[in-house]
Every structure is written in structure tokens, then in C-alpha cells.
């Protein structure tokens, strides 16, 4: 077996035997992503739907029968009360309505009732709107006017985005950032363990004392870190797609069209482009991390350096990437490390990526990856770095 494959085998074996790392990097993303991305939205939609059909008490005074009928039509229980405001404050009613002198006052415990009170407010507004429209229509007719004069034209919005862009859904803009984050967090423990961890345990010196070129040892370590990064990313994206699928199949709680808008799917082309971009970025990230890991004296110190890398290099690039839809990125922006691949992924998901974007982003990331791995190789060969512990 070639030395690089041998090291690759050892690193992956160690990784897969580390239950905590496997749980954090591979199992949790696929389980937690659907929960984090869609869980809260689903829960709120479900509760809102429930609240919208609940029979809540509305205390009224001076309200005409027509409005009472509209309130009943949206599922509310209308009760006459001499003081609707007090009824709400004392908890005898969920809302109160007083019509006096051509003015409607609606009493609600908005600050106390939270979203449920907001839903109730929406139901009352809906009933009031319908009653108002009916009144206006009747008065216009009395005046010999067509009610259509109030609506000289209709407005319709139509999304002409290609289907691939629509499939990415509401969370599509988060995907490039998440993909790069998963690559970083997936590679980090493997690289820390394979560099500073080995120095700390004293295994690095033994490993370097075998008859194998340093470059082969480095390649084996980098390869294992990339596999961990790709698996972690696949788990995260898989979790997102699983959440999207669950939303489409179990998304009855959402209003019309919202489930489809929130869902997330990736077509074959987008998957392939994401995979290539992810692998290239992983090579770059792993090279930088190995360099930093070699500079560190301990596993903990390596984690600190990599956290620093995250703050200095990745966060600004992520912000830039997220703003790309406003910036209309010029070709040169695709050459920026980290931001370039992110913007390419964003363009792929929006079905806007052209050949130039692919060439610039992939080409530059490949060059950065080679430079980072070369830097890592130099660190591996410097005795001041290897024996600095």
C-alpha cells in the first residue's frame, strides 16, 4: 500500500472510532438540520393554523348584526357585554369590540397574548375588512355607482425564475454559507488531531521517522480530512434536503404555497457543481488548517488558531457572499478566496452561473488549494515547526 494511502487509512480509522466526532460531524447534522431549519417555522405555522380555527370569545357592544355575522363566519364566538375592554382585561373574553360614533375600537391583550393574540387580531381584521367592503359596496350601489370603480386594475406577481432556482426555496441563500461551514467544521477535528494532536502525543516524530516521503504523509492526512469534511457537508445538506422533503409531504399546516417556498431541493447539475466546489474548497481549507495545526503546540492551541481563521477569513467572506445578490458580482469577485466559491454556489442555486463564473471560481480555488497545501508541506518539513513542542 502506498504510504499516503496508509496514512489516509490510519487517519480515517481513528476518526471513525471517535464516537463523539462521528456523532458531531456526521450524525447530528442530518438529524438537527431539519429541526433547526424547518422545525420552528413548521411549529409556528401549525400553531397559527390551530389558533385560526379556535373558537375564541369576542365581547361586543354597539356592533351591528352584519359585523357579528362576519365575526361568526371566521369562527369567533360573539357575546354582548356592557364593557368589552374590562371583559378582555378580566379574562372573560379574548377580544373586545366597541362601535361608537362611527369608530371601531378593538381591545386585545397583544403584549400578553403573543402570537395567538396576533392571529386573533388578524381574524378580527379579516372580519372587519369584509364587513367594511360589504358596506362600501352597498353604499356605492345606493349612489348608483359600480363597486368596480374602487379596483381599477388587479395586481399579480409571477415568478419567472427557472425551476432550479425556485427549487432552492427560501433557505437556498443559506446553502452556500452552510456548505462552507460544514466543510470547515468537518475538517477541523481531523486536522487538529492529525497535526497538533500528533505533536502533543509524540506520535508525529515516530511517523516522520518511517521511510516515507513527508509529502506522502501530508497527502494522506489531507485526504482523510477532506473525506471527513465532505461527509460532514453531505450530512448537513442531506439534512436540509430531508427537511425540505418532510415539509413537502407533511407540510399541510402551511398556508397555500408556503410549504413549497420553504422546501429545499437540489437538481443533479446543482449537486454536481456543489460537490466540485465543495471538494476544491475543502482542499484549500484543509491546506490552511494543516499549516495552522503544525504551528500549534497542542490540540487546544490548534483549535484556537482555527477559530481565528474562521473569524478573520471566513466570516467576512460569508457576509460578502450573502450580499452578492445585491452586489451583482463582477467576475473578479469570484477570485476572492472563500467568497468566490460561496458566490458561485449562490449563482448555481439561482441558476445564474455562467461558464466564466465556473472557470474563475474553480480555477482560483484550485490555485489557492495548491498554495495552501504547499504551505502545509513546507511547515511539515521545517524542523523548528515539527519539533516545536
Amino acid at each position, binding site marked *: *500500500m502506498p504510504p499516503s494511502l*496508509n496514512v489516509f487509512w*490510519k487517519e480515517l480509522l481513528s476518526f471513525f*472510532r*471517535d464516537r463523539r466526532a462521528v456523532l458531531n460531524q456526521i450524525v447530528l447534522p442530518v438529524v438537527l438540520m431539519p429541526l433547526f431549519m424547518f422545525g420552528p417555522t413548521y411549529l409556528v405555522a401549525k400553531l397559527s393554523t390551530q389558533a385560526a380555527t379556535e373558537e375564541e370569545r369576542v365581547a361586543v357592544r354597539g356592533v351591528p348584526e352584519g359585523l357579528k355575522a362576519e365575526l361568526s363566519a371566521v369562527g369567533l364566538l360573539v357575546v354582548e357585554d356592557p364593557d368589552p375592554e374590562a371583559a378582555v382585561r378580566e379574562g372573560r373574553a379574548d377580544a373586545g369590540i366597541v362601535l361608537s360614533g362611527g369608530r371601531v375600537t378593538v381591545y386585545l391583550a397583544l403584549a400578553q397574548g403573543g402570537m395567538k393574540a396576533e392571529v386573533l387580531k388578524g381574524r378580527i381584521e379579516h372580519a372587519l375588512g369584509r364587513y367594511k367592503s360589504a358596506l362600501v359596496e352597498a353604499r356605492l350601489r345606493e349612489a348608483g355607482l359600480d363597486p368596480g370603480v374602487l379596483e381599477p386594475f388587479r395586481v399579480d406577481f409571477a415568478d419567472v425564475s427557472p425551476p432550479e432556482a425556485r427549487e432552492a426555496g427560501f433557505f437556498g441563500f443559506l446553502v452556500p454559507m452552510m456548505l462552507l461551514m460544514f466543510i470547515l467544521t468537518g475538517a477541523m477535528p481531523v486536522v487538529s488531531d492529525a497535526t497538533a494532536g500528533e505533536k502533543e502525543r509524540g506520535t508525529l516524530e515516530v511517523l516522520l*521517522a518511517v521511510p516515507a516521503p513527508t509529502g506522502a504523509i501530508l497527502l494522506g492526512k489531507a485526504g482523510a480530512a477532506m473525506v471527513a469534511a465532505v461527509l460532514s457537508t453531505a450530512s448537513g445538506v442531506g439534512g436540509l434536503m430531508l427537511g425540505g422533503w418532510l415539509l413537502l409531504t407533511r407540510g399541510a399546516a402551511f398556508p397555500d404555497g408556503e410549504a413549497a417556498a420553504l422546501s429545499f431541493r437540489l437538481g443533479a447539475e446543482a449537486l454536481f457543481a456543489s460537490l466540485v466546489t465543495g471538494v476544491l474548497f475543502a482542499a484549500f481549507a484543509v491546506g490552511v488548517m494543516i499549516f495552522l495545526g503544525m504551528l500549534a503546540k497542542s490540540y487546544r492551541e490548534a483549535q484556537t488558531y482555527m477559530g481565528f481563521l474562521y473569524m478573520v477569513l471566513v466570516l467576512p467572506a460569508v457576509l460578502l457572499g450573502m450580499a452578492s445578490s445585491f452586489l451583482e458580482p463582477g467576475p473578479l469577485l469570484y477570485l476572492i478566496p472563500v467568497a468566490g466559491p460561496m458566490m458561485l454556489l449562490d449563482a448555481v442555486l439561482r441558476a445564474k452561473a455562467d461558464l466564466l463564473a465556473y472557470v474563475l471560481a474553480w480555477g482560483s480555488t484550485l490555485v489557492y488549494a495548491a498554495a495552501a497545501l504547499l504551505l502545509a508541506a513546507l511547515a511539515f518539513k521545517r524542523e523548528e515547526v515539527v519539533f516545536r513542542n
Partner: protein
Amino acid sequence: MIEVRGLKKRYGRTEVLFGLDFEVRPGEVFALLGPNGAGKTTTLRSLLGLIRSEAEVLSVAGEDPRRAPLAVRRRVGYVTGGMGLYERLTWREHLVFFGRFYGLGAEALEARIAELDRDFDLGEALSRQVQAMSSGMRQKILVARAFLHRPEVLLLDEPTAALDVFARRALLDRVEAEKRAGRAVLYSTHVLPEAEELADRVGFLYRGRLIFVGTLEEAKRRFGARTLEHAFIQAVREVEADAA
């Protein structure tokens, strides 16, 4: 087997080895003795080509580690003082992992592991992960690993540093056996009684200088000492007195 002439090493402006001269012959244990920081580990790392150093002659098993480090490493078994092991690998996996670097195929590896199993009494422990083992058991792997490819030269750097009395005894017996088998053994330690038991010749290394090279008897005679420890202390006193 090992020939060193004028070995020098500096880290930046700090010189840590000042022209060492010694040799280790086949079937001989040469003990490199000195306190922590004397330069023992630096010497061993130079012999493996792990660090760059200057020398008129630097030869290990007929190869120069500066020019052909991989050829040297192929013929050397190296044991470090630390417990440098992979916690989540079993003994067998350790031996397979390191054996592959020396070009041992699956069959040859299995045969060699079986031999080491007999020699080191590995038994069921072969399939246990290192993290579940005592320090003595761990040291067995380190030593077995160094002997795996039947090296011509053994470089042992503080090999008993973390051992209990039983594991230490087993290791010393193993080194004795390797010597009888014709291997050249460079044994670096600051535990002088071990050297007294094992070594054919000794080198006193103090602050990067070899202040004495010779047999145990020559050392005791030269410094008028009953034991090697006394001889070493006397040698250091003389150097300090000359420097003053």
C-alpha cells in the same frame, strides 16, 4: 554501523552540538549518557535525518541520513521516550500500519506479527485499542514496532522513561537479546545504572559536548569512580572546573 565525526547542530544562534565523534559497532550497545538538555535527542534526530545538521562523517548502516534519510530509516528501529501511540488503534493495527511503510506485504506482516506475539507475549491484547492499555503494555508496542522490520540499527531514546519495573526489565532483556543478534544499539538515557548493565561502551554528553567516550571500565578508571554514575559526575565536575 554508526559512524559520527564532527557532528554539529545549531538552532538559530544557539549551538547545541559541538562536533561529536563516536561510533557504534555491530553487536554493541553504545550508551549515550547525559542529563536532560545535553543533546541526546538532537543527536538521534540527526542520525535519522529528522533535523538538518553538519558533520564531516555521518553514516548509519552505510547511508548518510543527510543525503538518503529514507534509506537510513528503512534500516533503523527507533524508540522515543514518550508514549507515542495512536489511542484508537489496536496493537495489530499499529503493527500493520508501521509494517506497510517498510514494504511488508500482508502475508509477511502476519508472519512477523505472529513472531512478535510470541516474543512479546501480546496475546489477546493484539486486538485491543491502545487507550485501554497500561503504560507497560504501551511500551511493549513501541518496542515491538521498532523491531518489526528487523532493523540493523536500533536507536533507543530514553526508552524506559515511562515504564514500571516489570516492563523495564523486559525491555532491557530485549535490548540484550538484540545485541547478541548482532544489532548495533545506540541507547540514550540519563538513567546511568541501566547503561552500566547494558552498555559495552559509553559516551558522556554534557552541554552538547562528548566529554568522554570509552568502555565502562575505562570510565571508572579514568575518573577514579566506583560506579558509572560517580564517573559521570566526576567528569562533569572536571569540565566545570576547566571552564571556571
